[in-house]
């Protein structure tokens, strides 16, 4: 059947197209955050009958390596590019070069600095890291009004998480409340990260907030809160990012107030669609700015995340239909 | 004629463009002490390293007690009763004197090393040889040249090997210590079942302890006489003659 599809080369009402190959350039290629992004990108490609996009870039947010990967893709004459523009200056020239070579480029997940995308990409599809960090802080401010808040970050300076912590810090600053926000470095090794957060907790028994900006640290915050029963002490808020099982368990058990879902699946799925439309329409359908949104997973809505494994959250490779019923929560 | 304890037949060895040994035929009988002499760089050490299984020869056979064998490794040769003192001594600087003396032949009270027994035996053997060390527990890196050599020699002499290959065992030894080692070798000879090949540049010592002398020149054995049938003068002449001819 696969053969047939290829021979026909057409999907749905779309015309027969070459098997276009798109390349995603990422800053932390092996990070679990982007596992659903890769599923999204694969699923979109399968839907459209094009080749599975390439997932490449840097493992440790080294911009030089990303630029190399981007340039290599341009040399390789790929059909479309999605780039996480984690640095506003570094990608300007390569993106221009790609556009000059007739390769459409969109940015996803990160788009330069606030108010300055830096590159001439056709559109941005994602949700800003800085903004999501700001949201992390803002949500915490609903319950914290003073004291000490720690923000845990695995690798300071790394482009996938540093903007989040900067955003969170800004949120606290903007609030004007008497809160001291301290960024605390954990570790690339999650196990060391847990020990470090544990040590911080031991040394700061009266901390009023513990936030984290990466998956590992978020899970570790939940575990530490539980271990020292910090909810019964001065802790007002604990939260973080991403939906790995241990974080969800933390939310469920009330050790974490919330964890933020940046809907990474869409950050893979939508760029493929955008690039495909551009190609198939000869540029008539230009990619449009798309906010993939941000979702707070709290005790109230954590259950479906825990009880179902889905490609959409990265917890399984299986194709699943996630059932739901009842009214949809709204404001 | 008795079966030789160790025999080399047509041994050749090249290092890149250099032919170190071209056609070596040599044997040592049970209980015999053979002296091997030759200029620096003649290939004596190379030959020893072939006879003990460290180097593989490019051609030729090795016959141990009448049995043709391919020596796969030093360990293999040792299992056939061939033990060696190397010119570079093969000591491990990081280990103590007694561990070096029992290297790869450690006394074990399974699973642990029997350090006490090794220490005791090492002390006794070194004392028997007249070697006096600060302490057998000291690392060999800290020893003087002669002390190091004494350890390497003691290690082989007190093994129960059938064939001992000694590459310049006396080079760094003091006058007195050298004499004592020669005594030990003479004792072995008296026991009658150990064969020894000994390399030395001091011909007086060679004639003193050896039954027979071989000269290695141009990759071949060019001279083979009983010690009783030759003299210090003849040996010295042989070598100097060669040197004069070349000049």
């Amino acid at each position, binding site marked *: 059947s696969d053969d047939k599809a290829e021979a026909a080369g057409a999907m749905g009402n779309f015309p027969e197209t070459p098997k276009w190959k798109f390349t995603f350039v990422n800053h932390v290629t092996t990070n679990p955050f982007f596992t659903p992004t890769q599923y999204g990108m694969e699923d979109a490609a399968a839907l459209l009958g094009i080749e599975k996009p390439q997932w490449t870039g840097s493992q440790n947010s080294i911009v030089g390596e990303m630029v190399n990967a981007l340039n290599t893709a341009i040399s390789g004459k790929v059909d479309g590019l999605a780039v996480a523009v984690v640095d506003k200056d570094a990608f300007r020239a390569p993106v221009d070069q790609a556009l000059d070579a007739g390769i459409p480029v969109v940015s996803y997940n990160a788009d330069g600095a606030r108010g300055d995308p830096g590159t001439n990409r056709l559109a941005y599809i994602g949700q800003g890291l800085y903004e999501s960090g700001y949201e992390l802080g803002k949500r915490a401010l609903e319950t914290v009004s003073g004291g000490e808040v720690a923000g845990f970050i695995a690798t300071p300076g790394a482009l996938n998480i540093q903007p989040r912590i900067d955003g969170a810090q800004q949120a606290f600053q903007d609030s004007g409340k008497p809160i001291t926000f301290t960024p605390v470095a954990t570790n690339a090794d999650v196990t060391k990260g847990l020990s470090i957060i544990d040590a911080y907790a031991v040394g700061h028994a009266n901390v009023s907030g513990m936030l984290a900006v990466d998956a590992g640290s978020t899970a570790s915050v939940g575990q530490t809160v539980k271990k020292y029963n910090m909810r019964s002490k001065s802790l007002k808020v604990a939260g973080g990012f991403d939906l790995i099982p241990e974080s969800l368990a933390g939310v469920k058990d009330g050790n974490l107030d919330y964890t933020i879902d940046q809907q990474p699946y869409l950050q893979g799925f939508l760029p493929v669609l955008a690039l495909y439309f551009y190609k198939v329409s000869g540029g008539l359908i230009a990619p449009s700015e798309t906010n993939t949104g941000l979702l707070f997973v709290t005790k109230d809505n954590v259950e479906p995340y825990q009880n179902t494994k889905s490609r959409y959250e990265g917890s399984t490779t299986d194709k699943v239909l996630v059932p739901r019923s009842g009214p949809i929560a709204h404001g | 004629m008795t079966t030789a304890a160790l025999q080399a037949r047509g041994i050749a060895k090249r290092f890149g463009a250099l032919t170190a040994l071209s056609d070596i035929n040599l044997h040592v009988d049970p209980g015999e002490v053979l002296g091997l002499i030759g200029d620096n760089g003649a290939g004596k050490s190379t030959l020893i390293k072939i006879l003990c299984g460290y180097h593989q020869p490019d051609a030729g056979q090795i016959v141990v007690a009448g049995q043709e064998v391919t020596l796969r490794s030093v360990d293999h040769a040792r299992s056939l009763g061939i033990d060696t003192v190397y010119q570079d001594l093969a000591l*491990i600087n990081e280990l103590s004197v007694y561990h070096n003396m029992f290297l790869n032949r450690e006394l074990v009270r399974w699973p642990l090393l029997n350090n006490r027994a090794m220490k005791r035996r090492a002390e006794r053997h070194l004392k028997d040889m*007249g070697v006096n060390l600060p302490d057998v527990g000291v690392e060999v890196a800290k020893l003087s040249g002669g002390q190091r050599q004494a350890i390497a020699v003691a290690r082989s002499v007190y093994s129960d090997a059938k064939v001992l290959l000694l590459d310049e065992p006396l080079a760094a030894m003091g006058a007195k210590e050298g004499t004592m080692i020669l005594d030990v070798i003479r004792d072995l000879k008296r026991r009658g079942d150990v064969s020894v090949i000994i390399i030395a540049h001091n011909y007086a010592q060679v004639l003193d302890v050896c039954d027979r002398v071989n000269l290695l020149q141009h990759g071949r054995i060019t001279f083979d006489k009983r010690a009783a049938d030759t003299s210090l003068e003849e040996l010295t002449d042989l070598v100097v003659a060669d040197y004069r001819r070349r000049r």
Partner: protein
Amino acid sequence: MADTAERTAEEAPPRAPRRVLDAFLRRREASVLLVALALMVYFRASSDVFLSRDNLVNIAQATAPTAIVAVGIVLLLVSGEIDLSVGIVAAFAPFLLHFAIDYYGVPVLLALVLALALAAFIGLVNGFIVTQLHVPSFVVTLGTFFAVQGLLLITSHAYPVPIPEPVQGTFQTWIGAGPWASITWAVVIVAVFHVVLTRTRWGLHTISVGGNPVGATEAGIRASRIKIGNFMITSALGGLVGIMEAARINTIDPNIGGGTTLTFYAISAAVIGGTALAGGSGTIVGALLGALVLATLQNGFNLIGYSANTIYLILGLAILASMIANQYLSRLRRAGKS
């Protein structure tokens, strides 16, 4: 050699406490231990809770994985080799356990054995290529590092999984989740391999092979066997650490070990403890103490609460200061021995 210069006369038996102190100072590990103790005193002075039970557990848990991997690293460094892949083996092993249990229904203990055996097999491959094909171990293990990372990411889809049901409970506690579980494992493993390195033929030959490869071969020691064995021990220990840590953090995460981070810490612990990168000399107890020093530094400064950027500066300076002190102490110690 009757004329060996004599020992000086001052050998009148010292009094008992003096004797214990002497015996302590004679040990090579003494100086690192002193550094560790000094750090503890300093941090205790800076923070009341530093010596609380909770925090001691925390330090113990941070020390254990580094120390256990460092045991293997010491064996390898002493025998003149290195292993960069052990950290990724640590990440892979718990997934192997998970696959065996959750996909194939293998009983827990058997799955543990299988996972460790597969880990050891990676060590075997490393050792084989190093000793038989004569490729330097740095490149070989860089190659297996990438290859195993690829396998890990492909099979795990770069996504964490929960601890398998049958592992939860006793087994999980016992292998790593219990407060003192991992450090107990570490101490036992350190003790065993300390004996192996210092009191068995294997250890002696490991030292020989690294100290003087030509000499060791001339003495008939089979260097390949020793090295392959040490690669296998290292990988197996790495695998054990991975499973232990997964149990402790209660999730099987592809990021356990942080790629090369764990390896790096382990090498650092070994070197801090007194193992030479150049081979031939090393101490396993020292590596444990090195891991303790690193864990104490990290824990102490985090306890005090330095912020992200500052802590690196402090940590770096503290490492330098500690190691200079260590060097100074061990020179005193050597002088004191005389």
